[in-house]
């Protein structure tokens, strides 16, 4: 047993040393099929649940996995406190006890970590053999292209068969908006929130018009998206910011709405006006409160997040906690239709580069993604105790279930499937209407397969991130006496940081990419 394990470890190490394409052939764990089940550990994001429901679910899921692929599943949590640091540090550590890693290209640094070698490149043969159902579905839609670095290798499996809308916007109260003079209580333009905020300030003395905490750029992005045709290139981050855009009119020229045009100044002036009205706490940057709870408690006029949160959480909570509040959603780009569909790698699953059982990990993934029974167990839990199916065929909760203490918390966000997902009783009644509305106007994100080479511009991006993190939060909260001067200063510092070199480097990658695909 011991020798066997040693041999396997040695084989795995050897496999890593050898060029990656030969990995599939190594197959170090093939021999364990009839032996003890292998435990596959999956890294997920979120706070580890302590109510015992997860363990109970795994006790039912694991026999199923043992039967199908002779493996067990275990979860490893990267908790929300400092999750960015923890996630990257965990991957950096090269911990071989983790096999599957939840990732995403837009919020979990998938490209960065793939480039850094944290993920095992997945060969086609390996996927076909060990995750055949997943391979076929993703392949049929041509989505493997979305997961390749410029070396042409597949680095993760996209959650490409799950409809969700993670476009951001304001949640606000229709009842207050109606009293503020909006027809039907519906606000249709970003600037009109000034009127709404003023009404809240005057008529709801206990509430902040928009109670918001910490560094944030929603007030700027909301304006920019609705007043330009800028299209943010999501692959390029500088710190927490996305400084590179193209325009719909000129989709293959790289620019930046932080650097060009007057819209940033207009947005900053609007933010300054809001700050003077007292829309947020004067010290919002140092404030650290639960602002969503404030919204639910009627102490904030607005909350800010994406469509999915609106249909899944906001409507249900507001209807129960603030009866008659008529919660509504205004999304960025609603005025001019400048809104994008979700990218298909907003959730993805990678195999850890140092995993001892990469093939087994893929086999387990294939089951939890494609076997309905396993899928329901992992995503919803045990029927009867974690969820019930209502007469309408919706997913509901048993008597006395409290989502804040009884949640399953398995946080499987890297392989959900539309065909297995049920409508939930907590879903907004107008969910479909909202989806259809977005569906009618939303644009396809044009740069899904664009992988700019960041090696040479990384230090520049880091320096730009430093500059942006200094200016943007202050612009967002209207803290500069003279926003125009502050923007000039910021632009000069971004130039000093090497903005133009970075833009040129991205432009030449963009040219090559567009040419390769005959787009230009």
């Amino acid at each position, binding site marked *: 047993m011991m020798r066997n394990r040693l041999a396997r470890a040695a084989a795995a190490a050897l496999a890593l040393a050898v060029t990656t394409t030969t990995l599939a052939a190594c197959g170090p764990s093939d021999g364990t099929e009839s032996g003890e089940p292998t435990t596959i550990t999956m890294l997920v994001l979120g706070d580890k649940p302590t109510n015992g429901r997860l363990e109970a679910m795994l006790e039912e899921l694991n026999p199923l996995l043992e039967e199908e692929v002779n493996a067990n599943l275990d979860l490893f949590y990267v908790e929300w406190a400092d999750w960015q640091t923890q996630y990257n540090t965990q991957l950096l550590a090269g911990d071989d006890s983790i096999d599957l890693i939840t990732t995403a290209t837009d919020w979990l640094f998938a490209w960065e970590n793939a480039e850094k070698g944290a993920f095992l490149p997945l060969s086609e043969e390996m996927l076909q053999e060990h995750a055949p159902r997943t391979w076929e579905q993703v392949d049929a839609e041509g989505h493997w292209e979305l997961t390749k670095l410029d070396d042409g290798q597949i680095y993760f499996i996209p959650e490409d068969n799950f409809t969700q809308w993670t476009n951001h916007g304001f949640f606000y109260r229709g009842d207050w908006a109606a009293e503020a003079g909006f027809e039907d209580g519906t606000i249709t333009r970003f600037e009109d929130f000034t009127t709404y905020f003023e009404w809240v300030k005057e008529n709801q003395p206990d509430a902040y018009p928009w109670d918001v905490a910490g560094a944030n750029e929603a007030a700027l992005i909301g304006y920019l998206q609705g007043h330009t045709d800028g299209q943010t290139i999501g692959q390029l981050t500088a710190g*927490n910011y996305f400084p590179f855009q193209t325009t719909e009119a000129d989709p293959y020229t790289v620019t930046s709405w932080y650097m060009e045009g007057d819209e940033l100044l207009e947005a900053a002036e609007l933010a300054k006006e809001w700050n003077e009205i007292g829309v947020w706490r004067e010290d919002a940057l140092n404030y650290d409160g639960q602002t969503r709870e404030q919204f639910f408690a009627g102490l904030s006029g607005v909350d800010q997040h994406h469509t999915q949160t609106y249909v899944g959480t906001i409507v249900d909570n507001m209807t129960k906690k603030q009866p008659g509040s008529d919660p509504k959603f205004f999304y960025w780009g609603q005025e001019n239709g400048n809104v994008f569909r979700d990218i298909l790698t907003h959730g993805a699953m990678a195999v850890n580069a140092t995993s001892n059982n990469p093939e087994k990990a893929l086999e387990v993934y294939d089951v939890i993604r494609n076997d309905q029974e396993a899928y329901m167990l992992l995503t919803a839990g045990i029927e009867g105790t974690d969820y019930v199916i209502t007469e309408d065929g919706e997913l509901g909760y048993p008597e006395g279930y409290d989502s804040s203490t009884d949640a399953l918390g398995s946080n499987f966000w890297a392989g959900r499937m539309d065909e297995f997902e049920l409508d939930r009783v907590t879903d907004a009644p107008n969910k479909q209407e909202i989806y259809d509305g977005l569906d009618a106007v939303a644009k396809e994100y044009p740069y899904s397969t664009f992988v700019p080479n960041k090696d040479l511009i990384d*230090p520049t991006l880091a320096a730009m991130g430093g500059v942006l993190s200094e200016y943007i939060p202050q612009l967002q909260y209207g803290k500069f006496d003279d926003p125009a001067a502050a923007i000039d200063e910021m632009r000069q510092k971004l130039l000093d940081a090497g903005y133009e070199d970075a833009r040129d480097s991205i432009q030449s990658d963009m040219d090559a990419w567009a040419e390769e695909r005959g787009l230009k």
Partner: protein
Amino acid sequence: MVMQASAATRTDVEEHDPVPTRPRASLLRRIGRNRTLLLMCLPAIAFFVVFSYAPMPGAWIAFTNFNYRDGIFGSPFVGLRNFEFLVQSGQLWLLTRNTVLYNLAFIVLGNILQIALAIMLNEIRAKYFKKISQAVMFLPYFISVVLIGVIAFNLLNYDTGYVNALIQQTGGDPIKIYSIAGAWPIIIVLFQLWQSTGYGSIVYFAAIMGIDNSLFEAAAIDGASAWQRIRYIILPSLKPTFIILLLFSLGGIMNGNFGLFWNLIGNNAALFSTTDIIETSVYRMILSQNNFTSSTAVGLYQSLFGFALVLLANWIVRRINEDYALF
């Protein structure tokens, strides 16, 4: 090295000694004789080996374009490119200045207050009052900086802060304290002193306790006043303690009190010009930029600078009085 050199000299002198292994035996014997002391050192030695010396080769990351697969020593070497970022960001000078100035303020004001406090405690004769004052001054040291951050916010914030409520009730206009960069050096220094003075005074208090009583008796016979006792006996006796503490703190002059700064300031960029120190800047870099190489580079810069400062401070002290130098 030193051992071998002295051994060599000795064999040169003692030409008649035919046994070359003698220094070795003597070393063993010395270890044997001092085994208790060495044993007591062991935890400290182990601590530094594990947490300071063993990770040191990892500083190589600062010179690479690090990737996980190739690891620390396999990743491509890029020379000083990661350090360019420090200069490029334009922040290096600001960070060094803030870090050094804050520490100087902490060291100078801190030591003066600690010595004053220790002397005052020493002068108090009422036993219970002395114990209680000591305990009260000690207490802030045990309050977590996270709580200090919360306390500060609840005292100082604009909308609901205690200070501004007081100002408003007395007819004044509230102050936007979290937007005034100039106010924060004072606030931070005050919080730091409030937290650390009581604890720091213990060392000085102990040093005062250790002063030979006969000196005080002689002074009393000569008719020295309380002030003269302090001026001519206590203060000179505290000098070696002060210098050693000063040297230790100079070595750490490039290290900021991360917890305090982060919890008081956080991401409030309006205050960075006067409050951003190396630690907080590096923390934000890793947190938001996934940038291990640059932050290692900053760490290395910080260590080298600190090391140079220790050597310099020790050299200056040696110039003044050799007995007080650490090495």
